[in-house]
């Protein structure tokens, strides 16, 4: 039970998990998370894996859009770059997955920085348009560059193996994905305790003041693009291993829109928000599927409109959140937590 802050050092003020009980709870939660594969069905594992990948992608996007204020509609393309680089490295050079995934992240980070260069000249909605254009150009290149990407047919990923262990089912992939998720979350949380992270926030809040304060805009905007794309590329590479077959159609523009929806609904500028949003948006179609199958006996036409229903609910949610809770689920979570923290005596 904590009813106020009493910190005697900056280190205590900056700490991520501030009380012993939070630390224990987080530790227990991670343990619980890693025990999930022992008792869940393969369907649940598949959903869980997609949630994990979405979390990494959403954290990446949030670093760029939520924390640095640079709007990107090109995330689907970055995911595709990550996925196809992992595929190319794995198939052509036979590299193991533990090298492919970080290398794919690097390739995506470099590409992200290339796309980010115009962000110095242009900002706001121009950047949104430039990244959207980049999406279509990357999609075109992936379809045309058949020697590397397999063209329209795409690539079939090799089974990731490490020594004698083959990650050949969803259960084993789950561990791979969630180890990366935990690392990504910790990195994300820690990033904003460091100088670059604070520079990102300064750029978002007021770019000119940030420059006056000595923040090198060129350097930090590119760094933000790089880090963000590294995350997104990693998510793409993991998706390649999880889905086993990747093609240009795996990464349509709707993937980018979904990810923007995740950070809007979860909370912009919040790592926790990225997690909430990713979980929520990935679960949404599954929940809708449950509901439509349950109701299909009485309303058989529901099944045929399922995909439109998903889009409809997504659109409504995004708009409702933007109008009524622009800071997203993370803000709601904090206010609920604060309310219960001081429960009968809150004012």
């Amino acid at each position: 039970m904590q009813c106020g802050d009493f910190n005697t050092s900056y280190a205590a003020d900056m700490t991520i998990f501030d009380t012993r009980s939070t630390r224990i709870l987080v530790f227990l939660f991670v343990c619980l998370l890693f025990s999930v594969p022992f008792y869940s069905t393969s369907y649940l594992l598949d959903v869980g894996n997609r949630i994990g990948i979405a979390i990494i992608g959403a954290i990446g996007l949030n670093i760029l859009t939520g924390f640095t204020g640079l709007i990107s509609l090109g995330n689907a393309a970055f995911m595709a770059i990550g996925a196809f680089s992992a595929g190319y490295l794995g198939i052509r050079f036979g590299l193991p997955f533990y090298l492919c995934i970080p290398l794919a992240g690097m390739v995506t980070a470099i590409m992200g920085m290339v796309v980010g260069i115009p962000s110095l000249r242009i900002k706001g909605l121009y950047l949104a348009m430039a990244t959207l254009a980049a999406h279509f150009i990357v999609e075109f290149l992936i379809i045309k560059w058949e020697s590397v990407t397999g063209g329209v047919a795409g690539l079939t990923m090799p089974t990731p193996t490490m020594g004698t262990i083959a990650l050949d089912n969803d259960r084993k992939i789950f561990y791979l994905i969630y180890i990366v998720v935990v690392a990504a979350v910790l990195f994300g949380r820690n990033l904003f305790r460091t100088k670059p992270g604070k520079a990102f926030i300064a750029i978002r809040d007021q770019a000119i003041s940030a420059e006056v304060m000595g923040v090198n805009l060129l350097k930090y905007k590119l760094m933000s693009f790089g880090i963000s794309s590294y995350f997104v590329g990693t998510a793409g590479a993991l998706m390649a291993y999880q889905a086993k077959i990747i093609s240009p159609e795996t990464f349509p523009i709707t993937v980018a829109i979904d990810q923007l929806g995740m950070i809007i609904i979860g909370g912009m500028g919040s790592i926790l928000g990225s997690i909430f949003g990713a979980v929520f948006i990935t679960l949404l179609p599954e929940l809708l599927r449950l509901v439509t199958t349950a109701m299909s006996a009485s309303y058989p036409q529901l099944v045929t409109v399922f995909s439109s229903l998903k889009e409809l609910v997504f659109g409504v949610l995004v708009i409702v959140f933007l109008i009524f809770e622009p800071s997203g689920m993370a803000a709601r979570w904090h206010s609920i937590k604060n309310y219960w923290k001081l429960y009968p005596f809150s004012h």
Partner: protein
Amino acid sequence: MDMTFLLQLLINGLVVGSIYSLVATGFVIIYKATSALNLAQGEFLMVGAYICLNLLTKHNVPFFQSFLITLVFSALLGLLIERTILRPLIGSHLISVIMVTLGLGSILKALLQMAYGTSTIPFPEVFPSTPVRIGPIPVSQGYLYALVCVSILVTLLTLFFKYAKAGVAMRATASNQQVALSMGISVKKMFALAWSISAVVSAVGGILLGTIRGGVDMSLAFMGLKVLPVVILGGLDSILGAIVGGVIIGILENLSGGYLDPLVNGGIKEVAPYIALILILMFKPYGLFGKRKIERV
């Protein structure tokens, strides 16, 4: 390559481009008046096309009447959207406004999909199908009517912004909201008007595209994204720019489709406008006619 082929491409480009111009004008009107980026423009276009199609085929309303009913419906839709969705977001961050139009787009698209399915629905022939010969090139009459229709609408819009009281008030709002307010202009009304004009011109674009292509389906929504290169080329806040840009991008698209597609097995036609977008942003980010006020930070 012979001349006829080139001319054919140019004419196709001109006609498709003129429709881009129209939709881009709708986009620019919203941007100028409310500084919102409407990424649901393509869905507006689809709504227009589907409503008109529905009236024509299901209710057997003659074309001219269904056209007018569609326009009225679109105007009301624009008003409704502005009032319920955009107004609460006045003054919020750019990403919110972009995202809200994306959400709106996915709602409109989903509703249309639920009502009409995803397959292509043939559009009844509105214009006589015998082509007219201009010099050596046969041109379908639908193209000519589309071109005429766009020209009339664009002229009307220009006159509206130049002479009508509401049009002048809208321009005032666009140039400075504070001053406009102090001159007794209701900025809220102007915002509503902007959305409804934009919905109407997009609906016209949708109907014309439907008649030209002979069918409507969900791919019409991508037309909404095609306006981005157009408005970037023309300058985001210039209606003249949108018109010129639309024609240029339409022609560019058709020429690259005609000459470059055979070299790489297709696909260039679709990305050429976006490559142009990137190049324009790099070298002339305010476009041909846009105001030079991009902040370089």
